[in-house]
């Protein structure tokens, strides 16, 4: 390639142009797990995950989402205590033209859902847009209601994962059929 004036500032061994290796981001993880499976990938205080374990978690988690679901979860791993911050960020972020998301998706994100649908089922449409009064009452309850109406077909595990990724009030959930949790995900 044509030499450029800044190339002389490059340190020895850095090429002015590089051959692109056609790898996607998941392939990088796959390669890391294959070549360095026992290398520690993540350290979180006293917990560790090797690349093999991380890949395993990703493989377990990833395909559980129906095709129609586009994930706009905060990128921070969901079991970490900052998911509430992530949700707030998301609420603030998804206010403009959100790519291929439709209007109800934006409403859902504003209402605090960490996972929202690209295609909203017909029977759920009348619930959108979410009223301010719905979301103001309890963030967790409105999240669950939203998920239920956006994805009534999600099986129990996904529902549980969804709940786990949402901001929830600190008080323990009430048990029994009348609780928000029971209403949120068991009926279809």
């Amino acid at each position, binding site marked *: 390639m044509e030499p450029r004036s800044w190339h002389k500032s490059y340190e020895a061994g850095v090429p002015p142009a590089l051959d*692109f290796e056609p790898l996607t*981001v*998941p392939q990088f993880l796959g390669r890391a797990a294959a070549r360095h499976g026992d290398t520690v990938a993540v350290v979180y205080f006293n917990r560790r995950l090797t690349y093999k374990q991380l890949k395993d978690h990703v493989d377990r988690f990833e395909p559980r989402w129906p095709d129609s679901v586009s994930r706009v979860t905060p990128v921070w791993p969901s079991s*970490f205590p900052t998911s509430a911050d992530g949700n707030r960020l998301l609420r603030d972020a*998804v206010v403009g033209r959100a790519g291929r998301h439709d209007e109800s998706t934006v409403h859902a994100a504003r209402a605090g859902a960490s996972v929202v649908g690209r295609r909203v089922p017909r029977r759920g449409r009348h619930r959108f847009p979410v009223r301010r009064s719905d979301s103001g009452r309890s963030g967790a309850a409105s999240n669950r209601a939203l998920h239920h109406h956006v994805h009534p077909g999600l099986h129990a595990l996904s529902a549980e994962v969804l709940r786990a990724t949402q901001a929830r009030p600190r008080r323990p959930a009430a048990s029994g059929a009348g609780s928000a949790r029971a209403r949120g995900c068991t009926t279809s």
Partner: protein
Amino acid sequence: MHDFVKLVKRTTPAPLPAAPHAEDLAVLQYTGGTTGVSKGAMLTHSNLSTNLQQSRAWFTGLEEGKEVFLTALPLFHSFGMTAAMNFPVSIPGTMVLIPDPRDVKAIVRAVATHRVTMLPAVPAIFNAILNYPKIGDIDLKSVKRCFSGSAAMAEDVLRRFEELTGSRIVEGFGLSEASPVTHMNPLNGLRKPGTIGVPIPIRTRGR
């Protein structure tokens, strides 16, 4: 509080049914920039992957499986996503997660305990580490390379941090739309503190 690991352990591992193509959309990276409403920058796998390979070429001498990264930058931001998450995975190296980048105590402890070798951060973090009480008594000599972005770094902070750790700080520049790094100062060689550096290597082949 649910334990994420316990939840996913109930299912069997199944790789993605269809591998994404390099030109497929990987993320909608929200960026506010300095004006207006946040916009989702459409970044493909190829975009992200190219940036990782460019960074890899720039940081010479990285050892596979040996590097330890401090992952304190927020991962929802393009800088943190690339420099503190995707880059370590591409090498691969260990990521030491710090949930709150303002927690200087946790950062200093993590660097010393886990022998962090690669430290991507913003000037405010470098400055905060320097001003940590009795920082001179803490062994931070494991740090070899640092990457600073998002704001110009004071020459004084850069010099003092390098003296403290024996590392080299590389200042760079990028934008979310470019996934994100476009410019960096050379790791070794002529560099100009407080500047964005020079354009990084371009990509020639492979689409």
